[in-house]
């Protein structure tokens, strides 16, 4: 294999750089956590407003969703980091990190939550209305508690993507895990050691997250489907 060409695999090398890598991982986790939590809140609130068909608000949300879903996250990051200073808005790498993830992830979770809320069987809503609930409280009592559970699997997929996409911040030289590791590779050429290390970290965390979300999905699955 390729290692036979004189590549001398030294796993110990990674440990020399452990403090820097750990620091990078912390930054990755920080921007991912804020981005994921923000995308969840944005998705719930805007998804509900969208499903309630509030005029004008619904169209504005639609525009936000289409713009952020149909342009690359990387270009969005570049715009926030390199173009906004021209109009007097200088954002730090950390801010661009979580903000871009929040805006991008939010555009997807809005759609998921909206679809979830709208998938709730209409009979429930009608029953509520027949009992004299207002439109808003009927929505609160039926669409919200059932709809978010319908949306859950697709939302958790997006949240995992938000975590993986935190690696895009290498493009603006924000020293998260990927940027830190590639920086070390570029000066040491220890390709396999470092890629094995960060590969295991990312795959391990993605795997842990999907285990966690599967447990949550099972816990909150609607008995007997919906």
């Amino acid at each position, binding site marked *: 294999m*390729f290692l036979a*060409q004189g*590549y001398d695999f030294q796993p110990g090398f990674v440990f020399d750089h452990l403090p820097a890598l750990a620091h990078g991982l912390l930054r990755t986790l920080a921007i991912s956590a804020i981005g994921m939590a923000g995308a969840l809140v944005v998705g719930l609130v805007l998804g509900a407003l969208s499903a309630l068909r509030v005029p004008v608000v619904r169209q504005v949300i639609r525009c936000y969703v*289409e*713009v952020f*879903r*149909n*342009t*690359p*996250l*990387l*270009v*969005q990051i*570049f*715009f926030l980091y*390199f*173009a906004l*200073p*021209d*109009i007097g808005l200088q954002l730090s790498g950390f801010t661009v990190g979580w903000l871009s993830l929040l805006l991008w992830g939010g555009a997807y979770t809005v759609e998921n939550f909206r679809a979830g809320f709208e998938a709730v069987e209409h009979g429930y809503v009608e029953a509520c209305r027949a009992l004299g609930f207002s439109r808003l409280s009927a929505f609160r009592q039926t669409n919200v508690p059932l709809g978010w559970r319908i949306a859950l699997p697709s939302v958790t997929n997006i949240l995992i993507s938000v975590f*993986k*996409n*935190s*690696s*895009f911040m*290498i*493009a603006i030289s924000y020293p998260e895990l*990927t940027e830190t590791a*590639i920086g070390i*590779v570029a000066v040491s*050429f220890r*390709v*396999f050691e470092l*890629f094995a290390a*960060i*590969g295991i970290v*990312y*795959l391990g965390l*993605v*795997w842990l997250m999907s285990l966690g979300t599967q447990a949550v999905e099972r816990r909150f699955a609607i008995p007997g489907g919906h």
Partner: protein
Amino acid sequence: MPLWVGPVASYVAQGLWTTLLLALVSIVASVLLGTVLGTLLTLPQLWVRAVVRAYVEIWRGLPIIITLFFIFFVLPVLGIEVDTFLAAAIGLALWGSANVAEVVRGAVQSVPRGQSEAAAALGFPWQRRMRHVILPQATRRALPPLVGLVVNLTQQTSLAAVIGLLDVLEASQRSIERLTLAGGETHAVPILGAVLVVFFVICLPLTILSRRLERVLQ
């Protein structure tokens, strides 16, 4: 129109061609390879499924930018001259084919079992069962998510800029740098804004198509 617009536009347009070519190559490679892998995932042989499953889980689970950098740094170690276009195409195809494989597996397995059994009872061997009975039905289910993946891959081509490919994003970035050096003004808002618009114009019709296919085919 200001003087800088002409040269920047033609420079960025050249980059756009590279982007479109990269998108085309990686989409074709992903669909071809992914269809084969996805079909293999439906075979009864456990070891075949295990090998393909490992491939799918690794390249789907890793952040795509790490895959791109990995290929970029590994090619020279393997004795292949570094070419950013090739590295980007391989990296995108690894990610894309793993995703296509999952879509194809899901679509094939969603075809009711009785269809395959009926064809088997009529004496169709596996290949012809796949070709004449399973795949035509699976295609209908796979098409909407596949179009979605095409949109996704087109957007992900922008990552090639990070390993230095002179694509639409890298060309705009270099233009901004040159303008800054020359006149002090970056013009980053109109240039990066134009890149956003270009991607939007390419991706929106495909997104709408995917949504419409979902409604029509299911």
